[in-house]
């Protein structure tokens, strides 16, 4: 059948192009524009080329924040993914228990970020917070405003509390798609609990796990609100992650050029690492099937 070729379909995607242009491309280009210029106010700009990029990439401050950020994301993934899988496996499959668990799991996800921060900020306070006060009463020396390790523990536990549910819900969805016959067949084949997980449950969860890992990586790598509310990046620079540092630089010090360069480098790192995760996980998937 001969069909007339034309390019009219492009008109149909034009609105989306415009929308994306105004919401993403143009702001991004503004940042690119700032990153290669210097300004002394008065709306006067001077071309500086890659100077800001070189400065950022060589700065101790950036290295410190990046290192803390990578460590934080690694800890978050190492805790939330296995914990999420484990909880999803333990959750009841049917009946009122299943509904109750789903509601309980969804609750933390419904709380706004800064509210989560405030909750934990108060919860962990030594003078009035339930957690902080209890720990102090038990003789444990815990103070997240003074001790770097305590601040880290607080921020990590808070994130685990807030976001493990997401991993649980995704894994649970993957698990629910497995027909009973698979478990029955495994019993007949004499499979161990581990074999059932390894050959039935894990393969079915793999696709949603990819999404879970990507979401949790990107989110934790860009974390801002909660540590900002709880610790403000302190004590010292102990919990100053990339976003917090960036905001300090851009808004606090009003260093537009370096902040713009910082933003672009940050963006490229998130993009690169997400791509690495995606490629590694889907490549293994390809081998298997």
């Amino acid at each position, binding site marked *: 059948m001969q069909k007339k070729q034309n390019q009219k379909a492009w008109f149909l995607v034009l609105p989306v192009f415009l929308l994306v242009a105004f919401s993403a491309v143009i702001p991004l280009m503004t940042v690119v524009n700032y990153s290669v210029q210097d300004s002394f106010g008065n709306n006067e700009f001077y071309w500086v080329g890659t100077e800001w990029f070189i400065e950022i990439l060589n700065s101790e401050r950036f290295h410190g924040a990046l290192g803390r950020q990578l460590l934080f994301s690694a800890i978050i993934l190492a805790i939330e993914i296995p914990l999420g899988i484990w909880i999803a496996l333990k959750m009841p499959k049917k009946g009122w228990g299943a509904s109750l668990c789903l509601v309980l799991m969804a609750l933390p996800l419904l709380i706004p970020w800064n509210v989560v921060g405030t909750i934990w900020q108060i919860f962990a306070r030594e003078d009035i917070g339930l957690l902080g006060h209890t720990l102090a009463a038990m003789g444990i020396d815990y103070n997240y405003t003074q001790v770097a390790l305590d601040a880290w523990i607080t921020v990590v536990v808070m994130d685990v509390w807030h976001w493990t549910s997401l991993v649980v819900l995704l894994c649970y969805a993957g698990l629910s798609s497995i*027909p009973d016959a698979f478990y029955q067949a495994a019993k007949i084949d004499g499979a161990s609990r581990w074999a059932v997980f390894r050959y039935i449950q894990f393969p079915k969860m793999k696709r949603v796990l990819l999404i879970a890992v990507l979401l949790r990586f990107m989110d934790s790598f860009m974390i801002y609100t909660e540590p900002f509310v709880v610790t403000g990046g302190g004590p010292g620079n102990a919990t100053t992650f990339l976003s917090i540092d960036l905001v300090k630089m851009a808004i606090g010090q009003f260093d537009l050029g370096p902040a713009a360069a910082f933003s672009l480098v940050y963006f490229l790192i998130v993009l690169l690492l997400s791509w690495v995760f995606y490629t590694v996980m889907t490549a293994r998937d390809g081998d298997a099937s």
Partner: protein
Amino acid sequence: MAEIHLKDMAHSYLPNPTGPEDYALKGLDHIWEDGGAYALLGPSGCGKTTLLNIISGLLTPSKGSVRFGDKDVTKLDTAHRNIAQVFQFPVIYDTMTVRQNLEFPLKNRGMAAADIEARVGEIANMLDLTDQLDKPAANLSADAKQIISLGRGLVRSDVNAVLFDEPLTVIDPHKKWQLRSRLKELHQQFGFTMVYVTHDQTEALTFADKVVVMYEGEVVQIGTPEELFERPAHTFVGYFIGSPGMNILPATVEGRTATVGDHKIALGADYGTLKGKTEIGIRPEFLKLTDGDTATVETIEDLGRHKIVRVAYAGHSLAVLVPENQPVSPGPTGLVFDPARTLVYRDSHLVRGAK
């Protein structure tokens, strides 16, 4: 291999069943002979799958016992029962190759690697899977997957019985016939006891030596396909087997005569005086249309080989199978019952008359 004996067995999914309506299986006492090919036939929800799961050990019956040969296995778990089961939807370990799928049950039982390889090779050879052994199992067609699930059962040399739970549901129609004859062939070759669950009568009748018909949690008849056709023990069997099913008419039975409305019908045996709900049943194959006006032809379906004629008789609609060469036209007609083939049912169960 051993015979399977279900002794006074009943099962309810409720923790504290009170009446018979709480039971999914209402009392069964049946021996499945070693090496037999059985079909378990019945409509959806009649307890077929429950029965199958009890044999395979996925369910423990509320009452009674399950014995394999001399051994009571009621409380034994599935892995130790030496049962293979093929499910409605192909169950394949997606991440494995065909070979790994076949090896899986043996590895789980800790068999030596050399023995596993020999056994898998042997089974693959019998199932014609040799050239596909190293392919990923996930990409195969549904019928090939069903063969592999069967293979996973057969690799174990100690299999007592192979259970099939509607295994052809997801198979393309033109492959169904092929796979069915393949399964039959394998049964003859291996000699395992085979229990085949289906709600398709053609499948059951062509497949099995003996057909077990279930209805509302009870076995209503066990018999060869011929017995089911000629002497259904229960009106449900008459209705369920055959296409169209048996005609069932409420009637009063007295000696050698059944009375339906104003019509008297001669019977092949003496039934005395029957109390309770009495009905007569006759297959459409054994009714004849003649000259006369006792009945009225209502509709005619021409199937090419024969015609199915619906006639109104004493206020009831009956199906009559008419040979292709006999002309039929709507309107009054005579209707002849074959006395030897007219069966009498009391409370839905077949009554045997005296000669």
